[in-house]
């Protein structure tokens, strides 16, 4: 089983390893969500969606479905 961004716990950090390019909006890439970049989960809304992340220095919120498409490696 691969770990995805959706499984990250609050305060945990990880490195993005890869994702299915077709399932990710281009906008997310432009915000710095790219393989090799670091990601930290800062806050979650109730039912852990959406997720408030720091990706490569950018602060943004995404929904869990999208987070499930992004594979990570915990650090």
């Amino acid at each position, binding site marked *: 089983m691969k770990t995805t961004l959706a499984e990250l716990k609050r305060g945990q950090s990880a490195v993005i390893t890869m994702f299915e*390019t*077709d399932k990710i*909006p*281009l*906008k*997310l*890439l*432009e*915000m*710095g969500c*790219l393989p090799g970049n670091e990601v930290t989960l*800062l*806050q979650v*809304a*109730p*039912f852990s*969606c*959406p997720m*408030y992340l720091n990706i*490569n*220095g*950018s*602060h*943004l*919120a*995404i*929904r869990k*479905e*999208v987070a499930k498409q992004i594979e990570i490696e915990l650090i």
Partner: protein
Amino acid sequence: MAKHINVSLIGNPNTGKTSVFNLLTGLNQQVGNYPGITVERKAGICKLPRGVKAHILDLPGTYSLNASSLDENVVIEVLLNKKDKDYPDVAVVVSDVENLKRNLLLFTQIKDLDIPTILVINMADRMKRKGISLDIPALEKTLKTKVVLMSARKKQGIDELKQLIAEYKKLSVEPCVNASVIDKEYFEGLQRAFPNQSLYKLWLVITQDVNFANINRNTIADASEFHTKKKSDLKRLQQKETIKRYQFINETLKQTQTVDIGSASGLRAKLDQLLVHKVWGYLIFFAILLFIFQAIYDWSTYPMDLIDEGFAWLSESVKMYLPSGALTNLITEGIIPGLGGIVIFIPQIAFLFLFISILEESGYMSRVVFLMDRLMRRFGLSGKSIVPLISGTACAIPAVMATRNIENWKERLITILVVPFTTCSARLPVYLIIISLVIPNERVAWIFGYQSLSLMLLYLLGFVTALGSSWLLSKFLKMPNKSFFVVEMPNYKWPLFKNVAINVIEKTKAFIAGAGKIILAISIVLWVLASYGPNDQFSKAEAIVTSQQAQNLDLDLEQAIASHKLEHSYIGYMGKAIEPLVAPLGYDWKIGIALISSFAAREVFVGTLATIYSVGSEEEETIKNRMAAEINPISGAPLFNLATGVSLLLFYAFAMQCMSTIAIVKKETNGWRWPLIQLFFMSGLAYTTALIAYQILK
């Protein structure tokens, strides 16, 4: 005289681009629309050293040149088309020192367009606090540009920027990243087919579906020996391009920027802990809303009462000084009360826009989007729908436009369709006057009056109906529902007074000008219709009434003549014609007229009643007093009692009575289908609920 220098301000959202714009232009700016579309166009004039002037265009905020909305399309079109009157001599890219990495993506794209480009690094006053230091000369060298460290908040760096704009011809137009390496063969073929064009411009034309200099997607596809690619392949190439650019940016910043995390202050984290907290976050949001509504109701009544009385006095004074005649009557009975009906809006609209722009400027609005997304999705909406729904409390028109950043079409369409249910400021005058007539002015607890609680209930009703209808719509609409939800969470900032003030003034002005024309036109038409009649009943009203009432000496003869005249005027007959339709809702023919006229714009209601009631009225009286004195001809009780009042409130809460909203919905949904569905659904709901309420309460 020398030609103006055309300057385009470009930047990511939340970089303080608007502050830079306000600083450059001061109050010397005009807000309008781009031709043919509803994207806001902000431009202004800036004086540069040695008497040169610059024409500054504030382009909509965008994260990249890969447009995904109408607003972002504007940016590309201005930057690609050399013949466009806005085509910049120099582009100023505004970035935020804390998000330099992300902001530079857009910069490297702009730099590929053969346009002299200046990089502004804004919010430089935060560098120390955040532990950031930059090697500016090295940065300038790698990015092949001039860099200005600026703090729009502290007004630093502005002279340096002006100097650079004036000397824009010295700037390099060389690209800093060679994007064509992502697919050499493809780009070489493209260049061979169009040897005279900039490669990156061609690439944007292919991927963005925009036109420039007579080349568009299809002409490129048709060009001999060159075959463009499939959509999915193009998307992959765009991703490669983004990755390539980020590699360059990461490399550049590694050499020129150092961040000492230890000295960074954690204000954002501390505030977020509270403001997006699972319990406190929601309580705080609710408290803020409560405060806003209380403020709008309680605080703005003082200026509104003054305006109301002021216009009544003005009417009287004009009547005294001008010679009596049809023209004087038109002015004192048609135009002045009509204008009063517009001006009375100003305090509330200004308050609403004030709060909304403070929430936006401070960065809090994004937290609300985050908090509400999950909840809103249950109703088929997005967290981003909360911004349109809150802006809808000012006016549905900017609210419908604010849906543009909702990526998912289904969520966006539903938001557009339900936004007009939220209580816009045009409903307020109607609500206020009816509430003040039928709800007792007493207080519960210490501060909350029954009247302001009723108003709060009406706002809640608007939101609840909006949510209920979206839930229904989400069940019925069959559309692909892929969620591409990305929200930037900007830093918290103290709102800049100047930005907020300019925003409030511009928005209020636009609203008054737009609604004002309609209201003024309608009040004139109404006055004419109320002052002339088709037959003898009108022209010989005096003789008829005098003979009828000869023996009844108690009756005020003039008043009786006036109301006889009104009843037999053109508008009187129109009102009578629809009376059977509105009688079950508890309305007489006068309210019927107000309903007809307010189908163009609901705020006309009060103005219409003002016009109708002031025709023939001699004493100085405010609209409210006139309405309170109206008697139901059948029962002899006051016409505006609880049943009629509630029925009217419900009617105005639900009915789609705004031509401008219908027009904007048509524009944003590309056709008549959705605005018509919206019109019939809302008006049907309005009639039914008003009918039920009146029949139960009467």
